[in-house]
């Protein structure tokens, strides 16, 4: 689909925000060599993933110039800038000192300076950043998950509607949607290859991720921001931050979202004060509108067996898929119906950008990933609500949840809502006691 009046709108929006007039890259689509057609890029969140996304954008080979960077921390921003500049040089990287924006508010100015933005901070900030990018009329690549609680999801869904109305491309880094084994296998499932899907099992079981230790002189806010994986307002727990990939595949296969979740979870081996409040395991059953049930399991147990994959059973057969390019459809007699080739497959992290930037360079509108990403993120949050409370809940109850994890105020001296006890340990959810919605 072509964007009809969007180029004009694009200029207008940019001018409104900055008080100046941009030379729009969309004016002469396809004239790649002309400097006027360079797309200006800003990255919000300059960690390993944000930096990786900038590299992938640059690797598309389109005329892209990085013009602004924002991160809460100057050291993270500087590391990222150094790597990008070394790799792509000053012709592609023009971020003057005043466009290296730190702290909690820098994102607004960074977004204003660009045509396209990468949103790659910890997920707690995504609703705020996505809202702003949509408000300013920018093209968007944002990482998963897209929020950490129902309050955040509602903001993202609202902004997603606005993005559609403005015909802003939004790609979300649920990269299985850009990975061929998933695309080809799920297309065949939807074409009826194994009948109706009646159940499934999705897993992310492994040993866990990094921990950043508290440093002398850090405020509580800075510590939580540095060690963000372990605090729900920032991360959403690993059922959301990591397992959303597998849960999203279940929704994709089922072409919908569950109506109900019930589950159990806890902190069995993750007991240290360095590991905040998140659980180390969640086991959830998601029931869909047609009564089919998906078993979801995620766990961080070092030394135990690992498993990260998705399986589903249908009335005529079954399917096995994984991020390692598996995509195998089998009928109930054991005949293989489809086996996706595993060698020499495109890198899905690159594919996301190849497809997005090809569309951006033509000035077209094609991608609206935000709504599904918000609803799949919501599914994972609903699972967490079920494991934290120990009580089943419906989609609507979860979606209308009133507990807002976000701090009242964002500043280095402000206090997050969750604070450690006198010994440095953080309170965590206790099933049967904890209120989640």
């Amino acid at each position, binding site marked *: 689909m072509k964007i009809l009046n969007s180029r004009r709108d694009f200029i207008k929006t940019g001018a409104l925000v900055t008080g100046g007039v941009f030379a729009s890259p969309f004016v002469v689509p396809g004239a790649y060599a002309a400097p006027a057609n360079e797309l200006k890029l800003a990255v919000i969140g300059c960690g*390993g*993933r944000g*930096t*990786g*996304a*900038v*590299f992938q954008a640059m690797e598309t080979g389109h005329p892209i110039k990085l013009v602004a960077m924002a991160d809460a921390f100057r050291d993270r921003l500087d590391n*990222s800038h150094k*790597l*990008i500049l070394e*790799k792509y040089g000053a012709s592609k990287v023009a971020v003057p000192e005043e466009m290296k924006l730190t702290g909690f508010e820098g994102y607004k100015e960074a977004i204003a300076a660009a045509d396209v933005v990468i949103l790659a901070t910890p997920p707690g900030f995504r609703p705020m950043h996505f809202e702003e990018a949509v408000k300013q009329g920018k093209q968007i690549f944002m990482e998963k998950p897209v929020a950490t609680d129902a309050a955040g999801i509602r903001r993202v869904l609202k902004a997603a509607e606005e993005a559609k109305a403005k015909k802003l491309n939004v790609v979300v*880094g649920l*990269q299985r949607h850009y990975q061929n084994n998933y695309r080809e296998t799920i297309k065949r499932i939807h074409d009826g290859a194994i009948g109706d899907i009646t159940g499934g099992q999705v897993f*992310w*079981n*492994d*040993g*866990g*991720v*990094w*921990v950043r230790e508290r440093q002398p002189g850090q405020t509580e806010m800075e510590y939580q921001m540095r060690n963000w994986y372990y605090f729900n307002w920032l991360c959403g727990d690993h059922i959301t931050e*990591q397992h959303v990939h597998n849960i999203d595949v279940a929704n994709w296969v089922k072409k919908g979202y569950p109506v109900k979740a019930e589950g159990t979870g806890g902190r069995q*081996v993750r007991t*240290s004060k360095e590991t905040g409040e998140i659980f180390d395991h969640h086991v959830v059953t998601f029931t869909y509108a047609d009564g089919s049930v998906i078993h979801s399991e995620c766990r961080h147990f*070092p*030394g135990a*067996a*690992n*498993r*990260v*994959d998705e399986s589903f059973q249908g009335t005529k057969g079954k399917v096995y898929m*994984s*991020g*390692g390019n598996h995509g195998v459809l089998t009928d109930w007699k054991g005949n293989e119906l489809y086996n996706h080739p595993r060698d020499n497959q495109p*890198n*899905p*992290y*690159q594919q996301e950008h190849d497809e997005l930037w090809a569309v951006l360079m033509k000035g077209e509108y094609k991608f609206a990933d935000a709504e599904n990403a918000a609803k799949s993120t919501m599914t994972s949050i609903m699972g967490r609500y079920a494991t934290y409370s120990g009580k089943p809940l419906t989609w609507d109850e979860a979606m209308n949840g009133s507990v807002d994890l976000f701090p009242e105020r964002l500043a280095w001296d402000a206090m997050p809502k969750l604070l450690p006890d006198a010994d440095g340990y953080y309170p965590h959810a206790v099933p049967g006691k904890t209120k989640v919605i």
Partner: protein
Amino acid sequence: MLNINSLKTIMMNIKYLGICALMLMSFDATDSNFEGYSQKIPGTQVIFDMTPIQAGTFKMGNDDSQNLDEKPAHEVKIDAFWMGTHEVTWDAFELFLDKNYELAISEEPIGERVDGLSRPSLPYLDMTFGMGKEEKPAIGMTQYGAIQYCHWLFLKTGIFYRLPTEAEWEYAAKAGSNTMYFFGDDPKALGDYAWTAENSNESTQKVGAKKPSPWGLYDIYGNVLEWTYDQYDIDFYKRSAKENPVNPAEKLYPRVVRGGSFASSPAEATSAKRFLSSPDWKRMDPQIPKSQWWFPEAPFLGLRLVRPWIPPSPEEINAYYTKSPITDY
């Protein structure tokens, strides 16, 4: 027989110099000590076996090969060393990669130096790729990660473990033979000794399930490719030293890996075949800089330990373990 346990007790908390002085003394002995042994990882129930490889001379390379980099075949003298009887498995490697896990299962304090060692970033992806851990080879580590595993073992045991040089690996694999494989030239016989694409069901397999080589090494062909210390140079054999040749790596790619894997054809998993590491093995790493520790697309890559009969000086040991990794992006 070297008394590992008593040495271990003495060595736990002393620094490199002290450790190595003790080691040199213990090696002031006759060759009668040069036997296989079992290494217990202190404070754990994990044990692995080391097999003695006697000093000797062999023909490195293969003039009959279609691969130019295996030529010219040339005579090389190799000093004595022990080699891991098996490829390193997750049972041991996971202790290294996750300090909290090591602390959780250790029966005694792990010591300050072990505590302070730089560890791998815990991989965001499942680095077993669903192929299992127990008795299965540890996989997907970079050469830096493999060397740091040796460093961790040194701090735990006081013994200098390292990667084989390319020449040591080939010497051990050939086991005195001058054929494609230590058992002859017929790839069809490889199934008795190795897991390759033909019989592996596309997965790593438990170590030690096939027949060993004449020198007592299991899975030297197949199962997983094994790290060496060497930079890959197509012309290295034309200029390499005649004694203990090694081509230390100064560039990140390519480096030499050996032996073929569960994904290799039997015909290529030979004693002389030189495999190359590749930046393609990190394509799916979504982070920049890319991990110094992991290759998310090399489930077929592992390591086997070497311990030289005569350990180098404390300074050389320190230099071996503390060489900075090259940033990858």
